[in-house]
């Protein structure tokens, strides 16, 4: 978002001051995140509707998810939010090495999350829990259990896509981080990306209880 800052001068020609540039970048990122919330919102609305219509089927289907892997991934993502925050701090205080290390840590934790997610997806394929012609589920209400898995793949898939995009951007940020591209005066891109990363983390904080935890104890 604040890419305009790059070039010979890190104040873009159409801004009057660094303050104006920073405020614009921050407001732009928050506005984008509002859009993202509504983007996920469609799936959350579908989930709420179907969960309230078919609670039994959803409970049964939810039981087939591995709560330990989900909890592990939750911890991993919260950890990555910490490293991301520290990376931004490194930019604010002008410590390129801290920024680099913390971004690398964020990238590794994000990749761990995606690897665990891949294991979970593979498990769904082996148990024929993937919606489609070969779907099979032992339970009271298989068609609506299939709906649960559609939502499971839709919501976690869209979330994972955001993780992949985030990880790709992170990989491209490592070299500039080491070069000291983000200074206390202008670290708008770093901070904007940090907001994005925390947002993706926060989506998972909602997904985990909705998909894994509700109706668990019986």
């Amino acid at each position, binding site marked *: *978002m604040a*890419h*305009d800052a790059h070039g010979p001068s890190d104040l*873009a*020609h*159409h801004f009057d001051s660094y303050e*104006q540039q920073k*405020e*614009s970048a921050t*407001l*732009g990122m928050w*506005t*984008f995140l*509002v*859009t*993202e919330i*509504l*983007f*996920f*919102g*469609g*799936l959350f*609305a*579908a989930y709420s*509707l*179907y969960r309230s219509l*078919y609670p039994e089927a959803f409970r049964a289907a939810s039981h087939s998810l591995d709560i330990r892997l989900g909890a592990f991934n939750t911890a991993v993502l919260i950890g990555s939010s910490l490293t991301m925050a520290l990376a931004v701090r490194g930019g604010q205080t002008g410590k390129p090495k801290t920024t680099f290390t913390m971004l690398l840590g964020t990238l590794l934790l994000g990749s761990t999350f995606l690897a665990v997610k891949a294991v979970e997806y593979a498990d769904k394929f082996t148990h024929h829990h993937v*919606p*489609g*012609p070969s779907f099979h589920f032992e339970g009271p209400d298989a*068609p*609506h259990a*299939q*709906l649960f898995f*559609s*939502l499971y*793949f*839709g919501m976690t898939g*869209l979330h994972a896509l955001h993780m992949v995009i985030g990880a790709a951007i992170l990989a491209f940020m490592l070299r500039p981080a080491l070069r000291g591209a983000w200074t206390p005066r202008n670290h708008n891109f770093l901070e904007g990306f940090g907001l994005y990363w925390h947002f993706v983390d926060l989506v998972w904080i909602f997904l985990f209880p909705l998909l894994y935890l509700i109706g668990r104890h019986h």
Partner: protein
Amino acid sequence: MTTSPNPVPAEFPRTHYLNAAYGLKSWLWTRDHKRIALLYLVSVSVFFALGGLMAVLIRMELATPEGDFFQPDVYNRLFTMHGILMIFFFLIPGIPAVLGNFLIPLMIGAKDLAFPRINLLSWYLYTIGGAFTLWALLHGGVDTGWTFYTPLSTNYVNTSVLTVGVGIFIAGFSSILTGLNFIVTIHRMRAPGLTWFRLPLFVWGHYATSIIQILGTPVVAIAILMVAAERMLHIGFFDPKLGGDPVLFQHLFWFYSHPAVYIMILPAMGVISELVAAFSRKPIFGYKFVAFASIGIAVLGFLVWGHHMFVAGQSIYAGVVFSVLSMLVAVPSAVKVFNWTATLYKGSISWDTPMLYALGFIGLFTIGGLTGVMLATLGIDAHVHDTYFIIAHFHYIMVGGAIMGYLGGLHYWWPKITGRLYPVFWSKLSALVIFIGFNVTFFPQFILGYLGMPRRYHTYPPEFQVLNVMSSAGATILGIGYLMPLIYFVWSMRYGPRATANPWNATGLEWQTTSPPPVENFTYPPVVTAPPYTYEAQPAAGKEARLGA
């Protein structure tokens, strides 16, 4: 403004944004909001022409009760692609991406939008989305209606649903980025002294529009993804066989697509506020009411989507609530119409071309709005649902409203954009021809719909022929009306007389720089010391002022 602290610009600048650089690359790689606006102007016009061509074919087919030219499935594709091209690729980007893009930085005294690269990116996204849609068009198009209702779109049709879906998805992100850019620009880039209540109402209208683009568009984007997942991967969300509910799709679709109507009309209302004040030589009546009416429409617009689903199996209680809320939208809309009318009252009105379009807008929008209140009534809606009454209502808002506003705005700011004037006689004639052609086309459709002629059929009972022939004849007049500005605008770019910096003697920062403006918009950083529309102090422009003679 006589009290303006900003220096008066020299007439006829030697270098400006149009001749600052030459070559294709200087256009396709530009970050200048004014050039990007012109890129949009060209691409938006192409899609308008294509969508219009389909309207011509539809009206040709409907000139007689029998099927003459097209098989039913071809006709289905025609009206579907007409709707998709006109809504997603002309009306939604139309005023914001062309006029808004060009004018918002000028009106608020900024050098550019907050994110110039993202502005260019949004044009590329629009173009790529459009390319997908055109590619699908060449492969037969889509026949689901522009609404893509499930399970028709996911299970039954065998047309390019996915390709067009991808096209709309991508164009949607272009729309989101434009809205984002406007919001940040209006918040952060205003000139010193330009407080919120000194903003031109054009900017308020675009601010309200941007809110809808930010909040609504992502919802239709996810709905398209869900349709794609269901169609391609059998990951069901809407298909009853897979446990889903097709009405959920309608909820998600209309959650965006109803507010999208306000994306199309709010910028036009912003244009009309500028025109009515400038050509009545009066400050706008009740400025704050008009400004907040825009925000009110944007907010209420999100609470009325259910009125598209009165007969779709929605609960009767939901129907009642949506009916009442839909009628509430009439309040801020009426506030605007009354305030424009009150601005006209005892104003010294001049009948310049932009004003003719603006007056046309007010009349046609009022008819469109009042029939909208009729449609919000549950009983009437059940009677005229899916008939030509809906088509007529919708086109009174979209063509009579949005396109009249777009053309009025183009005529008003054309001297600023190009530095040239267009012929007075032909432009006034075009406003008249379009107004007459429009009414002859669409008023009979109100009657047809009320008599029960359903939409989306290529044949109809013979007793409806007279009104249909009227409608087709009107469409011919309307088409000629649209061709006229195309010809004289293009002509004026080369042969039109040069325009002065402020040919209408209007207020507003955009008129305080040269026509066309320099690359950086203003040679001096502008300062604002007065509220907008201080027309008492400003005499109307004579012909001499316009030509700078």
